[in-house]
């Protein structure tokens, strides 16, 4: 068997890079350990550089049928590498001179490797390996502030939920294997097409859906998220809410769309139920939050609910070429994930910048921020309104594409989901605007400018420019997402 090294170039680069980071860190002392962060960033750049040349020769597969690099994988790998690069940039300042600075980047790169591997996995075992590669370093990272009680709580909750979901994942695999005699997704699809809705298969699938539900923080698998986000180093919370969540969605899509597409009539309503619960619980609980990171945690739960909608509406063997088609639905989800990454990372960037001066990160702390840091306040207001879907900020386009695809399906469930999404969007704006309100309408408790590290300011600037430009010209992301939508049904 020949291995296509070019196809797995990004993974190789990441594996090499993370080993290098670990070793270099041993040799470094004091402030120079920040090199580990820059080395991680360089690793991500190299991985991206190795990914891009593959674009002309998609799709390719290697390692048997376990690893596929097609349009779908390409889009999501680009998303994972891009958001990881931003998370690393956001980590450099808060993690500087931390006792485990080097280990932090090593673990972060491990998790990134998992997220990059996920879109290429076409085998249950690969999906499992990728998922655990994302999760396990996360357990350690969440608890990296060893002496901090909240950090410990974050790690323990995350660990317990994570291990539980790993357990049901493996159990689900065993059931599916028992039924199909294979862990290859394409062959599972063939078998289930012949056998139809076999209960054993269905139970196995639902177990794995639950495990991914933990990763995307879908209700009722979300309980860990707010506590873990709050207690972890905030850059990790950004990673969990964007990259790790995206990895969960990618895994979910692969399992359901490649593995058991013909059972969409059965798992669709389940995912639809998850979507309704996730949207509603996330947004309603977000209304009561006083802590910025917890607010972002519940907001990201609500956002996950919107993203589950297109998945719930996939129909087996639909050939409708237009808006409501399966490809259109996946395009909507991919578009949402891409836009969400930009705006949510931007929001986290501002929060991370604040955390030095205001470790408590309460909404009260940002009262009157517009007078103390006008640019950052405006940017955070922009990210919040974008998350709420107000044009012309990018979030509207994400919501619009999901909405368009859902309405294109036109079934009763589509109408119900779209209606719940509408109601939730309005609810969510109350707390999104609430953040802007605190910054602009409340009087600051202290005076004097709030200082943000230049690197974080740069990231904020990149994200807000991206949010504005994509809001006015969503086409680049839309056509990029389209390629993901079309190719996943060809694998």
């Amino acid at each position, binding site marked *: 068997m020949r291995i296509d090294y070019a196809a797995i170039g990004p993974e190789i680069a990441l594996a090499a890079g993370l080993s290098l980071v670990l070793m270099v860190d041993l040799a470094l002392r004091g402030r120079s350990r920040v090199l580990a962060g820059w080395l991680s960033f360089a690793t991500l750049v190299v991985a991206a550089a190795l990914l891009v040349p593959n674009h002309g020769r998609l799709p390719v597969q290697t390692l048997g049928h376990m690893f596929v690099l097609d349009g779908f994988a390409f889009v999501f790998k680009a998303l994972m590498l891009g958001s990881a690069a931003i998370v690393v940039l956001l980590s450099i300042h808060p993690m500087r001179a931390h006792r485990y600075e080097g280990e932090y980047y090593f673990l972060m790169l491990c998790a990134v490797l998992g997220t990059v591997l996920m879109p290429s996995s076409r085998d249950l075992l690969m999906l499992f390996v990728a998922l655990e590669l994302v999760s396990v370093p996360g357990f350690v990272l969440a608890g990296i502030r060893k002496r901090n009680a909240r950090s410990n709580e974050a790690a323990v909750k995350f660990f317990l939920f994570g291990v539980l979901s790993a357990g049901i994942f493996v159990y689900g695999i065993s059931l599916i294997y028992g039924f199909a005699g294979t862990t290859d997704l394409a062959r599972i699809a063939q078998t289930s097409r012949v056998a139809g809705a076999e209960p054993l298969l269905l139970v196995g699938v639902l177990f794995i859906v639950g495990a991914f539900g933990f990763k995307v923080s879908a209700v009722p698998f979300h309980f860990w998220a707010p506590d873990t986000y709050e207690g972890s180093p905030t850059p990790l919370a950004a990673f969990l809410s964007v990259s790790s969540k995206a990895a969960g969605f990618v895994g979910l899509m692969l399992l359901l769309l490649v593995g058991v597409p013909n059972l969409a009539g059965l798992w669709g309503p389940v995912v639809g139920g998850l979507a309704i619960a996730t949207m509603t619980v996330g947004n309603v609980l977000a209304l009561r939050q006083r802590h910025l990171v917890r607010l972002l945690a519940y907001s990201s739960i609500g956002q996950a609910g919107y993203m589950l909608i297109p998945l719930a509406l996939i129909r087996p063997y639909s050939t409708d070429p237009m*808006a409501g088609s399966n490809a259109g639905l996946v395009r909507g989800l991919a578009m949402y994930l891409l836009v969400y990454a930009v705006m949510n990372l931007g929001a986290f960037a501002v929060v991370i910048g604040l955390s030095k001066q205001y470790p408590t990160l309460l909404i009260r702390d940002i009262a009157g921020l517009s007078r103390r840091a006008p640019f950052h306040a405006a940017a955070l207001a922009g990210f919040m309104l974008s998350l709420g879907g107000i044009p012309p900020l990018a979030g509207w386009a994400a919501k619009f594409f999901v909405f368009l695809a859902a309405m294109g399906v036109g079934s009763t469930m589509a109408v119900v989901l779209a209606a719940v999404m509408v109601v939730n969007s309005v609810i969510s*704006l109350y707390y999104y605007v609430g953040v802007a309100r605190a910054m602009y309408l409340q009087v600051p408790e202290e005076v004097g400018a709030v200082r943000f590290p230049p690197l974080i300011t740069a990231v904020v600037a990149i994200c807000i420019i991206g949010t504005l430009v994509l809001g006015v010209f969503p*086409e680049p992301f839309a056509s990029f997402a389209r390629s993901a939508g079309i190719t996943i049904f060809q694998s």
Partner: protein
Amino acid sequence: MTLEGWGLSAAVFLPLVGALVMLAVPRAAFGAHKALALVFTAIPFLIALAIAIGFDYGDTARMQYEVDASWIPSIGARYHIGIDGISHLLFVLTFFITFLCVIYSYRWLPEPVNPKVFFSLMLVLTTGMAGCFVALDLVLFFIFWELVLVPMYFMIAIWGGPRREYAAIKFFLYTLFGSIFMLVGFIALYLRSEVGGDRTFDILALQQLGASRVWGETFGILVFAGLFLGFAIKVPMWPFHTWLPDAHTEAPTVGSVILAAILLKMGTYGFVRIALPILPDAAVVWAPFIGILAAIAIVYAALACLAQTDMKRLIAFSSVGHMGFVMLGIASLTDRGINGAILGMVVHGLITGMLFFVAGSVHERFHTRDIPRLGGMLILLPWLGGILTYSSIASLGLPGLAGFWGEFLALLGSWFPAPALGELTLLFRILTVLGVIGTLLTAGYFLWLLQRVNLGNVPDEWEGHSFKDVTPLEWLAWAPLLVLILVVGVYPRLLLDVTSDAVGRIAQLFGG
């Protein structure tokens, strides 16, 4: 040099550019911000005037200054803009009013004084409103429609009265709620438009499909319901009006002026531009319902006005009534009625804008708008009192001033509803009678307002105070409005000639 091609875009986006430029100027440079705001409203206003001069009045039903460029090919949304007789007046009005607002604000900046944020919000608002009136693509329309929400929210929430935050969030969420239903309607139209070939968000293409009656009956009625909710909340029609008195009362003067003079028209304009021509059959079904709500609005608003003691709140409720006349005219689905409605929109912009200016200036001087505490203003401030008299009388629809024609034509239209509404003539005649009763009540509350505020002796509270009467800057901002109110009142054809051909094409759909 011709404005064809870039003129509309330049006028629409220059204010936004101005807002961005202001971001780069330090906050303390008050003078610079005022000057920038003036420049970036004056130039678009001049461009709009040049567009109006170059407009071909022989063919107002045709889209002019059209631009149709690729924008989001993935969903077939295009950057398609243009103006015809229907949008022309509202487009020019937008720049006219905002320009006057900037002039007014040169002297009266609301507390906390922050011209940078105040003017940049105003400029963003201008882009949103003007864009709405030129957009010929539903997605583009939606973007401009939503663009006004955030600046207006902040304008009310930062510079408003005591209950500003409540009023601001109510305005924001209420309008947003409606606009999502509107968006649902847009998407439904897009998905169904495949009967005409490719799916499209293009308003003109959808109008053609509408004229050839391709939508199913139920589909049309449901989609109209979505559009209705979005537009009706913006207008606002009774019973969706409850955000308006709060927003108007709490907003700073200039915010109220913009809200009343332009923002509300986005809703009525939506009916004329989108709902009626795209869904003519559904419009016939919905028209009696709209007419009934409009008539209720007229009477209800007039009664509510009689009960108000806050001058601004009174004017706010009077807006609800005036928009009732506009909607009654639209509901008649006739040439006369819709012409009257558009005339009513423009004229309401002039008159009610003026009234809010006066209310703001009264508040600046007396630090109250409580009607029972005021009195004898003609003695204290003869000019301001005179202007209040003049605009109140214009607003109550005295013939000879602008307010008369819109109401008259709307009532006339509703007395003779479109042939498509033939069986409902009786209903519309009843509604017309209600409308006439409404005009009487309107005259009543405005005259009572004048009696309480302008006439009588100066109350003890203000005895001995000396107030500055209308300042030169106020004259500068107000004179154009005062003159136009008279000119349009004497010679309404000035405006009707612009609208009639374009409206005629819509009225044809209903046999009118």
